[in-house]
């Protein structure tokens, strides 16, 4: 089975990095960032034999705490559904990593290495399909708990998540039209180029009227530059899907105790908590792959990097260095996107529930349809893409 081994290695790598390293560390980052923003010190007490490392041991302490807590199942709860609900919430979040490319395609002699677990032709649809399953974790958790707060939370969650799934899909249709693909690896390759910002105006003879530097202004062909409105709308939708503040209506401590996971304790609660943070990483990775050029280095296409390094190190090592550089670039972009989400989470207050639904159906849905229309118009007028 020479086919199976690379898949296992790539799966282990992405799960170890995203679920094993990123998710626990960002629980600490979240506490530290809120502390900085609110002029506090934040988590810094947990230590092993006096070694504190900036409070980075807190995630470890949290896990020990959650594992040793009493595991309570309320009276009248549906025991089986109460047990599986956290799993239904956590598994789709982890499974989404299967199609997200964290590097390009590299040629080592005869072997070709592509850094994605499953290079599906319908890649982004797979992510949407998987994400829509995650709704059940929340809905079932609230129902199975036999608690009115939980039920209200899960009713809110089901309506909110279905509504935002619609706009989430529509908001990136413009991006599909620009890149003419749904395959995430092809999108990454398409973003490994640059385009002249006002190039499409040349057909209309407007460019001559502009200052010279403006007409030669180059940008990497990233989704965020091609579809700025699409980026903002997609970010809003995925944050609403994630149910973290400011979209934490299903949970809202000030109204519903803790919403759908009121009756969860110990590691069962921990699984809900972890799946939220894993989703933060998934969202950051997805935003990177779709809008921020994925693994590509801006203004340095893969051929240029390998071509520049080959005379110094030889072809094999140059390709290897390029691979490492690309993977590092990808994770740097992921970290920036995680920071952005945290910043939003600690900046905006929670709107009312009707405002959240209005935003989706009355603002974002018409805007996303208009975005598709305008993108189509520009592509039609400018000829080929961009």
């Amino acid at each position: 089975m020479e086919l199976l081994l690379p898949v296992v290695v790539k799966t282990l790598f992405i799960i170890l990095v995203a679920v094993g390293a990123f998710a626990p560390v960002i629980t600490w980052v979240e506490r530290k960032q809120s502390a900085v923003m609110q002029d506090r010190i934040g988590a810094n007490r947990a230590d092993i034999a006096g070694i504190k490392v900036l409070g980075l041991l807190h995630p470890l302490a949290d896990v020990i705490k959650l594992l040793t807590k009493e595991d309570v199942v309320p009276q009248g709860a549906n025991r089986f559904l109460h047990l599986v609900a956290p799993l239904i919430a956590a598994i789709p979040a982890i499974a989404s990593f299967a199609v997200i490319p964290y590097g390009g395609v590299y040629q080592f002699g005869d072997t070709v290495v592509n850094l994605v677990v499953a290079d599906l032709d319908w890649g982004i649809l797979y992510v949407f399909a998987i994400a829509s399953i995650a709704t059940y974790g929340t809905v079932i958790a609230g129902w199975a708990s036999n608690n009115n707060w939980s039920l209200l939370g899960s009713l809110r969650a089901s309506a909110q998540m279905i509504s935002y799934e619609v706009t989430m899909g529509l908001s990136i249709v413009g991006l599909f039209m620009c890149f003419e693909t749904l395959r995430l690896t092809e999108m990454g390759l398409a973003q490994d180029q640059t385009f002249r910002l006002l190039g499409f105006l040349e057909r209309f003879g407007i460019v001559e009227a502009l200052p010279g530097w403006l007409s030669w202004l180059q940008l990497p062909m990233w989704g965020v530059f091609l579809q700025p409105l699409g980026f903002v709308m997609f970010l809003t939708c995925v944050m609403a899907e994630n149910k973290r503040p400011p979209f934490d209506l299903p949970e809202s401590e000030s109204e519903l105790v803790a919403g759908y996971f009121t009756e969860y304790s110990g590691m069962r609660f921990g699984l809900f908590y972890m799946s939220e943070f894993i989703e933060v990483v998934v969202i950051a990775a997805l935003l990177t792959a779709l809008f921020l050029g994925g693994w590509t280095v801006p203004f340095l296409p893969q051929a240029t990097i390998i071509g520049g390094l080959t005379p110094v190190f030889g072809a094999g090592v140059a390709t290897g260095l390029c691979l490492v550089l690309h993977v590092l670039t990808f994770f740097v972009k992921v970290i920036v996107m995680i920071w952005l989400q945290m910043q939003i989470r600690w900046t905006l207050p929670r709107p009312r529930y009707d405002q959240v639904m209005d935003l989706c159906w009355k603002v974002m849905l018409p805007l996303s349809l208009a975005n598709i229309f305008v993108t189509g118009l520009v592509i039609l007028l400018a000829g080929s893409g961009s």
Partner: protein
Amino acid sequence: MTAPEVAFYGAGALAVLSALGMVLHVRNTVAAAMSLVVTMISLAVVYVVLEAHLVAALQIMVYAGAIVVVFLFVVMLLNLRSDAFAAPRQRLLKAAGAALMLGVAGAFLTLVPRSLPSVRELPEGFGGYRAVGAELFTRFVLPFEVTSLLILAAVVGAVVLAKRRLD
């Protein structure tokens, strides 16, 4: 058996079992709805094995991800107790149902093996979003537009029904 065969028969068996589970769990509506979700996902796996990738994605996104969630939403709002289903025994109805099911199963078993098409080589890109989209907007554009009109009518009807109570 090859890996696709294992996936095909495994998912097929799971689809049948979970569909049975849905029917037998009818008194516990939430459990029945969750069984339906498992049926939908197993069907999606069958579609993937049959190379119908777009249909598989839509199966999960639309049926499992949206429609059954709305079922659950309604079930939870109604808060049905299991005794709501303790209807008087309707023997005649049950007998008619059993007869109908046997008839359908008999027709299926006699007709389908006779009309099974021979295996063909799949065209390039079969079942992908490009091929399905191209077919949908060329050969089947009229049915497609008529369907969208029907759905629009249903949406308007739903809005009218919901609004009437507010005024």
